[in-house]
């Protein structure tokens, strides 16, 4: 006897991961290169994990003058974008873009279609928002349809408005001294968290969120 042969013609379950990356002018130079490297690192780390490779889908939302979003793409065809920095910090636009992405991307569970796992979002910013962000933050928190599973915000440097981030999500991290190495560590932590989520997501208790994320690196404070 052999194993069954189901064929592989059914859509797979996806773990959507959204990266919200600040590409405002203050990120120019070393920080934006470190972020580029970080996204590359994240991609590589996840590609090296077979479970992540089969489940993780990524979309990148950058924000400066306005917010731009790349389509949700499965990991094996995802190409890390090369980001350039310049302009103000349209964080509100990015949050609204995330809401739109959740509306349009996320597939609900149904008997005839494998639904997605709870999406994850990671926000990285080094400044204060220059547009209206509060209504978008509230909409994200209160959304009934396709809510976020986990939303982590990393504030970088002295200029970042921690109070703003705390209004956006309960999971706020702070990197006071922004170094290329620290940013690399952050992205390594993001990849560890995504890997963990891709393992834990299939067996999550109802209403549970991914509390069991790995501890962030020492250069990052948990607020």
């Amino acid at each position, binding site marked *: *006897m*052999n*194993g*069954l*042969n*189901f*064929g*592989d013609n*059914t859509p*797979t*379950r996806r773990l959507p991961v959204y990266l919200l990356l600040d590409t405002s002018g203050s990120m120019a*130079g*070393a920080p934006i*290169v*470190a972020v*580029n*490297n970080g996204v*590359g*690192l994240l*991609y*590589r780390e996840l*590609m*090296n*994990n*077979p*479970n992540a*490779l*089969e*489940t993780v889908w990524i979309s990148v939302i950058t924000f400066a003058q306005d917010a731009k979003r790349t389509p949700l793409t499965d990991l*094996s065809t995802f*190409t*890390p974008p*090369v980001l*350039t920095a310049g302009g103000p910090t349209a964080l509100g636009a990015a949050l609204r873009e995330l809401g739109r992405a959740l509306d349009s991307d996320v597939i*609900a*569970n149904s*008997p*005839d*279609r*494998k*639904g*997605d*796992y*709870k999406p994850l979002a990671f926000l990285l910013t080094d400044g204060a928002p220059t547009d209206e962000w509060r209504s978008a933050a509230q909409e994200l928190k209160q959304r009934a*349809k396709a*809510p976020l*599973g986990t939303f982590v915000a990393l504030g970088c440097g002295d200029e970042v408005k921690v109070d703003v981030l705390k209004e956006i999500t309960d999971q706020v991290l702070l990197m006071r001294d922004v170094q*290329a190495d620290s940013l*690399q560590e952050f992205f390594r932590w993001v990849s560890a968290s995504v890997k963990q989520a891709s*393992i*834990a*997501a*299939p*067996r*999550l*208790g*109802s*209403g*549970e969120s991914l509390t*069991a994320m790995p501890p962030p690196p020492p250069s990052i404070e948990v607020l």
Partner: protein
Amino acid sequence: MPMPDPPRGADRRSALIFALDVTGGDDVVYRVAVYLQDLARKLADAPGLLRRTRIDLVIFDAQDATVVALEQLLAVAQRMAAAPNPTGAAFAPLYRQIKQLPYENGGFHTFILLTRTPAAGWQSDVAPLHALVASVTALCCGPDPAPEVAHALSKEPGGTRIVDPLATLRKQFDSIGAWLMGNFADSPAPPPEPPAQPPASVPDGPPPAEERPAVVAPPTGAKWRVIEPTDRSDAVDHLAAQQMAGVAGWQMIGASRRGKLHAHEGSYREDAFALGMHHGWHLIAVADGAGSCRLSRVGARVACAGAIDGLKAGLNRFWNGAKDDLGATMLRQVIRAGIEEAHAAVYTEAGKRDIPVRELSSTLLLLALGPVPSPQPWLAVGQIGDGMVLAVGPDDDLRVLGAAEKGFYAGETVFLPGLAVSEWEAHTWALPADPLPEMVLVMSDGVADDLVPLRQQAPTLIGGLREVIVRPQPDQDLLTILGYEKRDSADDRTLAVVYRREK
């Protein structure tokens, strides 16, 4: 110095070719590819530029030259750079590739990005290349390529650029970008002069080291591994199979396999099942330990054993052979007794070990089919969490018994210790087994998930089961057919079946 043949009219469309030599090692190649991608994006976004010129990205080595899409540039460059390149590149493949590109009057303007000194004999390929293209700008990227190659390759007006150290590459590309935009994009300003050459170094110095993109090893996609757990406490066999004789032509089999994910992590199977017989009743319990809980494999085992005991006790206490609604009510009490005993067993185990009961979280699926033989057999089901109980009728009619109570998202489920006692009853079902099913399947989510959509996928499993049940060791064969390969199916798989040998 003006560009030759400035293509100002719509009828004079040029081609900008950026040819990246991928023989210089993945470090250098990746960095150059990152900057090239950036440059090509900027050019493509410049107003009107694509009206006046095409942009082609070509990747080449000693054997091949390939046109790649912008989105694929990094991935393809990484892949080709990682392949062993015994020599530097050759220009003949590049020449042949350019020749195949449609000529659109404006001429080919070629930027050759060298990452290594080309293979011996390159000199003879320069003249044919020069005859074909309007201009060549050669860049030696990094310390390896010999500058004389760039000098020989360059055809005015781009000239030679020696980009060493490599960190000055962005500035080189910025100046090339400004130059091309001045010539090809919509701009009220007169086109700027090409930058002075050769800008072997830049006046304001190389950017700091950390601005260089990191070297990225090409990810190839990981393979699943099979690892033995190192911790032997509470060890669980990776494979389990069992059969149990029933009555009146009925039979039970069950099988459970460790999933790819647990094998990859070197952890144990967290699914469990148990079979039982009691006065003409066929009893099945399947539990799937919660992945986030350390000892859920123990919880799953204890819950199954407890549930079978509880079902037997419940039958003794509540079942008196009543029909119709009264029978259904009684049977739901029987199932509730199974849940109650499973719950008690999990709490007892947690107490013995002095651990929070949450550590022993699992789902629980219960089935009681019986009594047989009798004029009116019943199906009674309990379900806490995901998985599926599926009755297969005489005409392949599929009936899902119980309910998985899934949330909006996949994987959101409830577990036995977490469910309030007052909720138990709502997780029980009982109905007359009419028509009598051919088989009833009780499965963990690892199997149930592969049956989505049910009517499309279930026939494969049912067909396999029909072959299994006529064989001498059906439980072992069940284990075998559950060893199928399927993408996005990495969970433990457990399936227990009660079936009629004779119809």
